[in-house]
């Protein structure tokens, strides 16, 4: 495993993310609103929801998980190691709260469903979001875009802008996840599991077949699909796998690894 000491998010961020961020930065009122909601959201999550309903898992409770998160932080050159709070839910997403003592809210589902290397990819994504300082905005994009979308005109436009940026930021996180696990097959397995494929079917043949099917389906774009994508905060799962696959084979991934080797 190559330790990427000195790694900057700008080295691997998706080029479309920067463009989307520039568009978002033009709407000052939206940034102010997001900051205000973000502040209250942080109080709610850190002081009420997480403390009241989740359980902090310390290093002595689960040394394997802690050593994994520490390794991911070291690989991506991020400090401090976040605190981990667990809860029961059948989702794959880790919620991330930045700050002096960053917090990861981890569903028990991924701990049960992912093997150690897949978890490395998933925690890599979370640490990458912490490193890029985009987690609060991403979480808000998920929670308030629907409300904003109900306000015709300005509200809808802002919701679309926010969702667009969030999708691109998600692609950057996937790249961070790949840099953390440093194995494309692992990243593909994790993304395929998130797409619904049971763990026992995730062998090499099936993954290759799946990617081929993704490539075929990607060539057909429709107006309906574009319209459906507009307010989504995540890129469609198949497109995520393809984007990561393309980035890996573009040589940019190898360049980063070789630079730090």
């Amino acid at each position, binding site marked *: 495993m190559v330790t990427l000491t000195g790694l900057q998010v700008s080295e691997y961020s998706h080029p479309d993310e920067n463009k989307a961020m520039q568009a978002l930065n033009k709407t000052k009122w939206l940034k102010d609103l997001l900051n205000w909601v973000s502040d*209250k959201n942080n*109080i*709610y999550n850190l*002081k*009420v*929801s997480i*403390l*009241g*309903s989740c*359980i*902090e*898992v*310390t290093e*002595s*409770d*689960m040394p394997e998980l802690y050593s994994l998160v520490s390794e991911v932080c070291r690989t991506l050159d991020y400090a401090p190691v976040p605190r981990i709070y*667990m*809860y*029961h839910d*059948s989702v794959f997403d880790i919620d991330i709260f930045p700050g002096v003592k960053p917090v990861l809210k981890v569903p*028990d589902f991924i*701990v*049960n469903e992912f093997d150690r290397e897949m978890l490395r990819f998933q925690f890599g994504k979370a640490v990458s979001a912490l490193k890029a300082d985009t987690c609060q905005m991403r979480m808000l994009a998920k929670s308030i875009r629907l409300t904003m979308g109900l306000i015709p005109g300005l509200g809808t436009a802002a919701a679309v802008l926010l969702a667009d940026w969030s999708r691109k930021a998600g692609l950057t996180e996937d790249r961070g996840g790949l840099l953390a696990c440093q194995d494309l097959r692992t990243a593909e397995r994790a993304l395929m599991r998130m797409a619904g494929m049971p763990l026992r079917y995730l062998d090499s043949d099936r993954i290759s077949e799946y990617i081929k099917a993704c490539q075929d389906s990607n060539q057909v774009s429709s107006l309906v699909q574009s319209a459906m994508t507009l307010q989504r905060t995540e890129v469609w799962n198949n497109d995520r796998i393809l984007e990561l696959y393309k980035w890996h084979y573009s040589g940019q991934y190898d360049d980063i690894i070789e630079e730090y080797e």
Partner: protein
Amino acid sequence: MNQYNIHNIKINPADFQHPMDKNATRLIQSSAAFRKCLEFISKQSLEKQMQCIYRSSLAQLTPKTAPGICRMAEEACEMFGAETVPELFLQRSYTTAVTMMGIEKPLILLSTELLKDIKEEMLWGLIAAEISGIRNGFGEIRFAEWLCDSAGIIPAVISRPLSKLFKEWHKYLQFSHDRAALIAIGDFNKTMCAVLAGEIPMEILMRMDFSDPNCSYMKQSREFLENKGHWTETLRDIKAFSNEGVFYAARYVNLYQFMKNEYWDITEDFMEEI
């Protein structure tokens, strides 16, 4: 199964029922809407219909298919003085829960997710806790609530005023259940593992020591309860209002205080009888 060997001794669950739960239960039972709801249930034979639905759609656990679990239910009935042993059903769900409801013939629903890796004595505690609610009238309240939630069965004029009372009751019901589980299991740490079973993986729970007042979860729970600040309190109230149950942190501190202050007085009586 129980370290104090208090089987065959009848304990009245009202003796350790949480006072807030007691008040909320009384409030529901004395309301005109609830009485009307019960009349409606009996007139329409709704309990029999509910049993038919569960028998035809869920897997029933019998002494042949699950002798251990059925024995737990029988022993819990003896312990908490419930006359009828509830029928047990398996419910496929990712929610980890044991739920008892019914009036004349209560039934218990066990979620498949909970049974995945829970230890036997923890399951015993959770089943016993549900059965302890039979004598306190929880079965009929739960049944009425279930019917009120099923759109259109109970007329709105009855179900609407009841729904707020049910919500309030849910906030305190868990405190009494946790106490019953502690009395049945007889070990604080294992009881907390049972309460949190399903919430986080069992292998992590087994490494924790909840009976240690300096454990990380006690610090977290105290921090949660003592957090002040205008926004924190407002947001906590909003969350508490919208919550179905009660915060785990509050349940933990409440049970710990019960163990320290009241548990030994209650269990001492059993020991003397033995």
